[in-house]
Structure formats: structure tokens, C-alpha cells
């Protein structure tokens, strides 16, 4: 209940402030932190990407601003309504909720979902509340299994008793309560097929952990769930990706946050996460060079960008990996471990790496 109040309070304060300006005969304005690259910086203390202090002022009586201004206030009004009735909307639904034609014109308040998305993101920035707290849901995607019991919407769900499927992770995990956490760590992987491999081999049981996946870049729900397990229960998060610039990037986003969501890093990033994916050393050790997938131009460019990231720049171990990958000019998939044996990853690769504590930070 307290959290709801916090949100409603923030939204009402926003309305009151604008109203006051109108009453004073001022040009009503919103102050929005700037989300562009130039206003994002890496904070070495928190080890997160954070938004800087640059702000843009947006006015109602300004041809260039008026549309965005009204869209943002409308997003706030919609959020308040959702809170009040206790419902959530997907971004697509929110778009249709906001879309309507201004009377006496052929102008729509929003024409493209991109516009309502941005209004919601601006609202996040102005109120410093995540969109989930504002009752807007992002995409749902991902599965989890392992030694954890939760309570959610009145149901008690044991993640270790869900057959071959696992629990389907919702887009919004704010209201989940952890009842019992026996697992000692979380293995996060980028691909559902990998997750099924580990699940079939009951890795979470044998290693006493949680296994979780999304598909490609982790959804916000998955990231927040990982973060909550990490922060609230101290579980180490191990990220299992391919030996691939894009795999490295997934790890980087999970751990340090991303430029696009820098304003919400605190609620998504996990600076303590560790990399347990394929390394250049694994490629040597397990003789995976024959499964090289040659770099395209775009892979090399991605790698070079990542190598220059501030948080990797002075990390010797990572720089060594980048250098070796560049020399190889190729990437290798985790699935390639199947060539060593059907359950090789579950029975040899993971136990061994965990035993030797071969993480990258």
C-alpha cells in the first residue's frame, strides 16, 4: 500500500505543479532529464551506467514542444487511473488508450506507438519511477526453474516442481514475494534451448541453483527478477552466453545497465553479476575452433565498441578475451559443446567452471 501511495503522490504533485504555473500566468513546463548519449555516464563507484544532470525544459506554449508536453501529461493521467483500478497495460494497449483525435482537427494525440512509449519513458524520468511501478508492462518472455518458492497473486509457486516447462516469467515482477530461497546462485542464459538442456539434465537440482532464460536481450521483467534475487537474497548471478560480441553485450547490459535505460539502472542493473559463458580459454581447452563462426564486419565493429567501454577499458582479463577473440576473428556458440557429448555442458563444463570459480567480472 505504501508503494501505491508513493506513485499517486508523485503523479498528483506533477499535476499540481503544472496547474500552479498556469494559474500564475506562466508558460507551463516540464523538466525532463536528457536521455541522449551525452548525458549518460558510467559511475565507477556504483559500477552502473547512470544519467547525468542535464535536463531539458519543455513548454506547452512552444510549437516544437506542445505535442510531447501533452502526451506526457496524458501518460501521467493514464498511470494514475491504472493505479486506482489496480490494472496494468502493455505498451501497445497504452498506445491505444492514449490515441484519440483532437476535436476539430485530424491530429491524433499519438500517431505511433513510439510516441506513447516515449511519453511513458519521459514520465519515468520525471517521476523517477519505473514503468512497472507506473503500471505499464514491457514484454513478457522467459522461463525459470530451481530451488525457490514464491508467492504471487495469492498463489504459492515452487519453481522446482513445474515439470519440463518451468515458470513463465511475467513482464512485471514487482509484487512477487520470495517465500523460500534454497538455491545458492542463479544461472542466467540467453537462449531457451540452452535452458531446456540444463533443465532436462536437472542442473538446478544437482548444483542447487536457479536457472533462468529470456531470449536474446533479457526483458525488463527478467532483469528485475534477477536483481531482486541478487539484492534481496544475496544470490550470485552467473551469466552464461556464447563466445560472441553480442553475448558479451548481453552480459554488459545485465551487469552495468544500458544507455537507453540508464535512468532506471538502479532498478535493473546488477553490478555483482559474473560472466560464466564461453571464453577464449574454453575454446582452446575444449577444442572448439572447428566450430568457429567467422566474423562478419558487423561483429568486429561491435567487439571494438565493447572493448572501448569505460567499464571494460581497464579490465585486463576482459581485454585479454577481446584481444583473443579479435585474433580468432570468429565466435563460438555454447551449443557447440554438444559436439563433445549430449550432456557435456551440464555434466562437465558447468561443474568444472563453477568448481574452479572461473568467472569473469
Amino acid at each position: 500500500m505504501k508503494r501505491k501511495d508513493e506513485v499517486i503522490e508523485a503523479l498528483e504533485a506533477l499535476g499540481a505543479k503544472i496547474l500552479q504555473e498556469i494559474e500564475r500566468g506562466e508558460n507551463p513546463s516540464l523538466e525532463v532529464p536528457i536521455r541522449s548519449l551525452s548525458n549518460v555516464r558510467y559511475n565507477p563507484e556504483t559500477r552502473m551506467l547512470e544519467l547525468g544532470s542535464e535536463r531539458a525544459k519543455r513548454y506547452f506554449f512552444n510549437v516544437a514542444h506542445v505535442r510531447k508536453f501533452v502526451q506526457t501529461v496524458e501518460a501521467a493521467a493514464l498511470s494514475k487511473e491504472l493505479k486506482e483500478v489496480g490494472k496494468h497495460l502493455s505498451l501497445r494497449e497504452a498506445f491505444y488508450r492514449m490515441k484519440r483525435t483532437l476535436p476539430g482537427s485530424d491530429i491524433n494525440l499519438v500517431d505511433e506507438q513510439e510516441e506513447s512509449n516515449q511519453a511513458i519513458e519521459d514520465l519515468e524520468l520525471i517521476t523517477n519511477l519505473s514503468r512497472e511501478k507506473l503500471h505499464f508492462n514491457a514484454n513478457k518472455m522467459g522461463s525459470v526453474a530451481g530451488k525457490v518458492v514464491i508467492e504471487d497473486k495469492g498463489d504459492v509457486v515452487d519453481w522446482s516442481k513445474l515439470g519440463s516447462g518451468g515458470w513463465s516469467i511475467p513482464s512485471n515482477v514487482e509484487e512477487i514475494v520470495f517465500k523460500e530461497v534454497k538455491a545458492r546462485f542463479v544461472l542466467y542464459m540467453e537462449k531457451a534451448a540452452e535452458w531446456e538442456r540444463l533443465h532436462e539434465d536437472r542442473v538446478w537440482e544437482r548444483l542447487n541453483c536457479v536457472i533462468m532464460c529470456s531470449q536474446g536481450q533479457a526483458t525488463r521483467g527478467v532483469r528485475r527478477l534477477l536483481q531482486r534475487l541478487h539484492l534481496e537474497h544475496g544470490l550470485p548471478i552467473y551469466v552464461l552466453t556464447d563466445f560472441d560480441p553480442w553475448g558479451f553485450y548481453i552480459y554488459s547490459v545485465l551487469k552495468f545497465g544500458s544507455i537507453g535505460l540508464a535512468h532506471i539502472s538502479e532498478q535493473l542493473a546488477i553490478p555483482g553479476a559474473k560472466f560464466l559463458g564461453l571464453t577464449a580459454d574454453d575454446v582452446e581447452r575444449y577444442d572448439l575452433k572447428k566450430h568457429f563462426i567467422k566474423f562478419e564486419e558487423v561483429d568486429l565493429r561491435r567487439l571494438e565498441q565493447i572493448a572501448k567501454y569505460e567499464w571494460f577499458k581497464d579490465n585486463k582479463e576482459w581485454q585479454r578475451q577481446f584481444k583473443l577473440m579479435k585474433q580468432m576473428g570468429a565466435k563460438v556458440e555454447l551449443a557447440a559443446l554438444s559436439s563433445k557429448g549430449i550432456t557435456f555442458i551440464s555434466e562437465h563444463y558447468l561443474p568444472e567452471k563453477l568448481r574452479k570459480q572461473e568467472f569473469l567480472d
Partner: protein
Amino acid sequence: MAAKGEELAEKIREISVAEFFEKNRHLLGYENPTRSLLTVVKEAVENSTDAAEEAGILPEIKVEIQQLAEGRFKVMVEDNGPGIPSSKVPVAFAKFLVGSKFHRLRQSRGIQGIGIHGAVLYSQLTTGKPAKVLSSLGGNDPIHEFELMIDVTKNEPIVLSHRTLPNPKGWHGVRVELEVEGRYVDKITQSVPEYLRQTAIVNPFATLHFKGPNGASFTYRRRVEELPRQPKEIKPHPHGVELGLLRRMLSNTSAKTLLGFLTTEFCRVGRTSALEICSLASLNPGQHPQKLSGEEVLRLHKAMQSAKLMGPPTDCLSPLGEQMLLEGLKREFRAEKYVAVTRPPAVYRGNPFQIECGIAYGGELKEPVQILRFANRVPLLYHQGDCAFTQAIREVDWRRYGIPQDDFPKAPMVILLHFVSVWVPFTSEGKQALACYPEIMREAKLALQDAGRELSQYISRKERLREKQLRMGLFERYMPELAESLSKLTGRPKEEIMAQLERRLDEEKG
């Protein structure tokens, strides 16, 4: 060996120029049936327009094409010009390199004394028929009817018949009838109707009648009842004279002193300038022009190039003028903006010339850009790719004027370029493309840039106006939405918020 050389030398003979062109008729524009038919019409129409205009008569030209058989046509072109004295008719039509225009530095359409002769030659080559020419000086002069052919080996006219017909109405002018092989088209850009359409655009003082072989007929009536100023003949300008020509002028002059030579044989050279040239060349102004040594001629030539002189007189040129250009464009194209630029005269190789440019933009026009090229009021329909004008359009940076560009500018517009000069440097005898002399390129680009600047002012004015209209009412439209949302957020009635916003808006306006 000596014998061999003598033997081979026996074969050295002189060639008739008619024979030369008979073998090389493609040089004159007779390279395929479609183009050949157009060339015949073109040569006759240009001869006629020039003749009337030079005599101070508002031209009225009739063009008729009859189809006689598959691939065979009769072309008739009649003018209301002064006519040609009967004694001169045979050479004027049936002897190559005879004409009234070659030796004069004066702006006119046909120039080189091979245009109408080429048409006569093409006719006799493809159908074996003589050219029929009717001419009368008007007044009491009867109508002279000739049947003419060219003796190709001698380049001399053959008069097959000459009779006189009564001329009760005192008709004056020339009528040519030619039977030729050809192909008639009317839909494409290089057709006779298109040629006449473009001719009408830049000859607004002429009336053109046309009857086509498919029954189609149309008339472009003159929109202007006044001839353009008569262009005058001029003398060469010193800046453009080449060494070889100078040498020849020196040996042919009747002047007795260098000073006299310079002041009488060139334009824009008075006593002062002439003395300056002599001094620059370290030559005695009193020296006899025919006695200059080779070395001295070289010095004189150099001095003439570097002396500061006024540009050539402009009265030898008769551009259409910006007003006339605008009217031509307006009648033919429904655009939303028309601009026209007539550049001041410039000089290339001693010849004064002038470039005019007109642009019609927007409205009912469509992309891609349409290019109309003219030289001395004659449309150029072929070889667009090789033409200095086309090159100039490419080289101008249209993006500067708010017009996207991809090699050519990309906009719904028509670009008209008109080259006016006493001498038109075509890249071939077909007279369809201007050679890329640097001076011509430069002036063409300046004309396009001038027009582009004017156009860009229009385009950006239009842009600004649209913005202001957009702005109007924009706030009003969003106000109810804002009021509604704020009402939801704060619980305050919507109407109250609206009232306050409206007050604020009035202040904004005020």
C-alpha cells in the same frame, strides 16, 4: 620507288563538298528515318523564320506533311518572308556552302550554308525527286516556281524547270516542297509536333500552322505583335581572336597602319585602346600591318589578349528577355512558380554570347526534371547527354537552393536554357548539342544559379508560410487534452483549467 610515288600521286583529286556530305549525310542529322524527317522540317522552318525576321516581318509559317506511301512523305514549308530573287534561288537551295549568313557575325538560326541544301540533297538521294521551290518578292513580282536538283560531283545547281505563275495577291515569301523517305511519329520528345511546340515557346512573335499526315492539325498563334530588336552585325572582339585568324586579318586588311587596323577591324578598340595595345606589344602604331614579322604578330596577339577592353557590344545579340521567357513557360506549363534570368553578354573565342534560363516549378508538373535546350530560338532535341547545358545542370549544386539532387536535380520542374550568339558552337553538323567551352559552361551555370536562388526564395517563403499556418490553432487544439489530463491528475474541474489556459493563450498572442 620514285615511280610508285608518282603513280600514287596521280590519284590525288579534288572532292566536291556536296559529294562529301552525300557520303556523310549522318553528319547533317540524316541518320535514321524519324530523325531525317524532323531534320528536313527543321532546316526549312529555321530558314523561313530567319528570313521573315531579318526583313522585319512577323513570321507566319505553315508546315504540312503528307504521307505518300509507307516510309515516304512530302514536306511543305511556306513562309511570309521577303522571298528570294529568282536569279539567286538555284544557288540558295542547290549549291552547298552558299548562304547569306556565314561571313557575318550576327545572331541567326541557320548559319553554315549547308542546312537547307542538306535537306534538298537528302530528298534527291532517297526519292530521286527534285525539290520544288516557290518564291516571290511580292508586289509585281510573279511567283517563280523552280524544280531543282544538286549536281553532286560539281556542287552546282541543276534547274529542271523554272516557270512563272501569276501573283494576283502580291504574295511574298518562299515555299519549299520536298519528297523524302522518313518515319513520322508524334508521341515522342523528338517529334515534329514537339519541335514546333518548343519553337513556339521561344518564338512568341511567330505564328506556326501545322498539318500532320494523320489528320492532326494545330496552330500556335503569336502572343506578341512586335519583333524582337534586330540583332546587329559586329566586328570581332580582340579578346577572342586566335593567332591564325589575326594573321589572316593582318594580311587582308586595307588599313595602312597598325593603329588603323586595330581601330577599324575590331570592336571596342578606340584610339586609346589601340595605342595601349601597341605599347604593350612594343610595336610602332604607324607600322604597316602587312609588314609585321612572325615574332611581332605573336607579341601583338598577346597584347590584344591582355589589354583591358570593354566587353563586346550587346546589340548584336537579341535575347528573348525575362518577360518573354516567363510568358513562354506560362503558356505551356501549369506550374506554381516561374522564374527567368537573362545573363549579361559574355565572350568565347571572340564571339559575344548570352545565356537565358527559365524555370517552371511545382503545380501540375511532375518529376523527373524536364530539360528544354535552345540555341538562337531553335529547340535542340537530340544528343542531350553531350550538351554543355546538360553538363551545366549537373554541375550546379541544387541542394543549396533546397532542391534534392542525384546527378540531376530532383523536383517537379522544367528547366529551359537558351544560348544566344552570333556563332553557335555545335558539337556536330546535326546541330543538337553545344560544345563544352569553359566560358559557356560558366555562364550557363551562373544563369542556373541565379534562377535557382530566386526559386529557393520562393520555396522557403512557401515553407515559412506553411509553418505559420500550422502554428495557428495548434495550441488551441491541444488545450482541451491538457485540461482533461490535468483535471484527472488534480481533481480540479476541466472547465476551470480551460478558462485559465485561454487567458494565457491570449497573452501569448498579444
